[in-house]
């Protein structure tokens, strides 16, 4: 039958050994691979955070409610954040730290954002509440332990953070991250993931 014949009949001008059958095989495999990829995509993408989950990824906080020398903790989409009202002493110690030997160098000013009046507000420090080592939530003034540098202490493996949230001792490689946030009024901030 003809289909058996074509197995050995070379296409005019093609290299010897290449047959129409090879072409059909390659074309079919290519179309199949394209189809599989097109179907696989939605089945993988459905695992991503859903629209309602994504919609819950910001929160507004009234910073005037944070007691001086302490902090409040908020969860946004299940992730913890610290909003700390620093005392003048803590601010001074954070500034002093700018010139110390730092594992992850950053000035205190670079870790603040401008308020509604266009000036930095050093009294309010907003950081992520996730230790950069393996993700524990460090303890702070409200839990009665601030570590050797006055900021936070991570009980899991002993990382110490200063009053600017910079890592000063222990296994954590990075400073506590500064989230995306902005002042929507002199006392309200909006934190987004």
């Amino acid at each position: 039958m003809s289909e058996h014949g074509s197995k050995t009949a070379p296409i005019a001008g093609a290299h010897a050994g290449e047959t129409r059958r090879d072409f059909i095989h390659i074309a079919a495999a290519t179309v199949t691979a394209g189809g599989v990829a097109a179907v696989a995509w939605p089945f993988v993408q459905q695992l991503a955070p859903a629209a309602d989950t994504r919609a819950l990824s910001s929160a507004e906080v009234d910073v005037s409610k944070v007691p001086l020398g302490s902090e409040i903790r908020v969860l946004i989409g299940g992730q913890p954040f610290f909003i700390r009202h620093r005392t003048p002493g803590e601010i001074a110690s954070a500034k002093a730290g700018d010139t110390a030997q730092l594992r992850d160098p950053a000035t205190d000013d670079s870790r603040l954002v401008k308020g509604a009046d266009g000036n930095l507000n050093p009294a309010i420090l907003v950081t992520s509440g996730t230790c950069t080592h393996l993700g524990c939530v460090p303890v702070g003034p409200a839990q009665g332990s601030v570590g050797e540098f006055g900021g936070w202490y991570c009980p899991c493996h002993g990382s110490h953070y200063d009053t600017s949230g910079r890592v000063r001792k222990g296994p954590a490689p990075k400073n506590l991250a500064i989230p995306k946030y902005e002042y929507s009024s002199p006392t309200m901030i909006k934190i987004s993931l």
Partner: protein
Amino acid sequence: MSGPSTYEPKSGFTKWMDERLPIIRFGADLMDFPTPKNLNYWWTFGGILAACLAIQIVTGIVLAMHYVANTQMAFASVERIMRDIDFGWLIRNIHANGASMFFLAVYIHMFRGMYYGSYKNPREVIWILGVVIYFLMMATAFMGYVLPWGQMSFHGSAVITNLIGAIPLIGEPIKTYLMGGPAIGDPTLNRFFSLHYLLPFVIAGIVVLHIWALHVPGNNNPTGVSVKDVKKDTVPFHPYYTVKDGFAIVIFLILFALFVFYFPNALGHADNSVEANPLQTPAHIVPEWYLLPFYAILRAVTFDIGPIPAKLLGVIAMFGAIVVLFILPWLDTSKVRSMRYRPVARSLFVVFAFASVGLGFCGANDPDKFVFNFGPDKVALVYTDTNRQPQREVSDDYAALRARQSALPPTAGAAIEVQSEGFKWLWLSQILGAYYFLYFLVFLPLLGVIEKPKPRPASIADSVRKKHGSATPAAAAH
């Protein structure tokens, strides 16, 4: 049929493997399986069904990642799948329409088997396993339909569980065990979800047995004539039928996609987009289309027979309609498999197929509405006479009735109604339901004795050669 394995491991690894777990040999033998060379497209539905089962399992596992089996949250979780999960709308539409496509394919597959006598000796076990799969599919689909917790989910499941409650003695306890409480509620939803997840895998296991049983005698074929000479009558499954099945699956998926993307709700019911409300039953309660013929048989029984009340008789008839499928191999007494060579059985089969589809339409329609009207509508005057008896006067003349009405005293409470006469869906379902059972219980057993079959081809190779008009077997040589 399969004969000795012709697989020969070539590389070092395949040789090593072959002595330990001959799984490569197993796959190679499957691909090499000698398959009648004359199978038509009705034989592609087995492959299509395998694809359907895989699609239901994959989409179902994804849905289960987002679905919440709790009466307070189930409906909202399905809405969330439709609106918030990336591609959730797609995956749910595939799963919901996939159930319909699955049943479409299984019905074609079963009618194929009935027409070509694939249930007969030596394939009875293949057939029975198939009916088991079909039964489990119905159970799976029924429980799946409860999960989105819409109005039809709730009230449909109430109807089905009450059906089971109609069975004497064991009915009530079974019903209570199914529901896990006085009514359909959280316990019911949770066990239905668990079973809805489990049963498809049970189905997959029985599919394995079904194919195992198939690989003992090998495929039937459109002539129904057994393979006589493996060389002349068969071709290897791969590439001949992998390609044919593959092509058919692609065509089937196009139809599937048409529903998923353009008519995703055409096969569903609008009431199921309304959250379940136990205090209010929808005006018109129907199951999904693929269960309608059985629903019609259930409702067709409106009469008591002796001590058996109509309600129980209906349930017996409905389950009986499935049970006859199990014993079909012994009901059909003819030795001739394919209806190509059974002129009388063939005509009765065609009527049977139409009757089955017709029963589906009966199930979808209100039994007391009319298939067609006997004539133009009339008007009727209804009132209470002086002896406090209800009276009804029918006429074509509205004005005359109107005059009669005003002549009656106010205490008669006279009113005018439209009066139509027609052929009720109920009667159609009684006729078609009767045919359904006659076909299995009377026609098939009798025909084997009284019908004179037409001559059959001597072999598969012979029938192929005749069809293609070549005298020599050369063209078909393999």
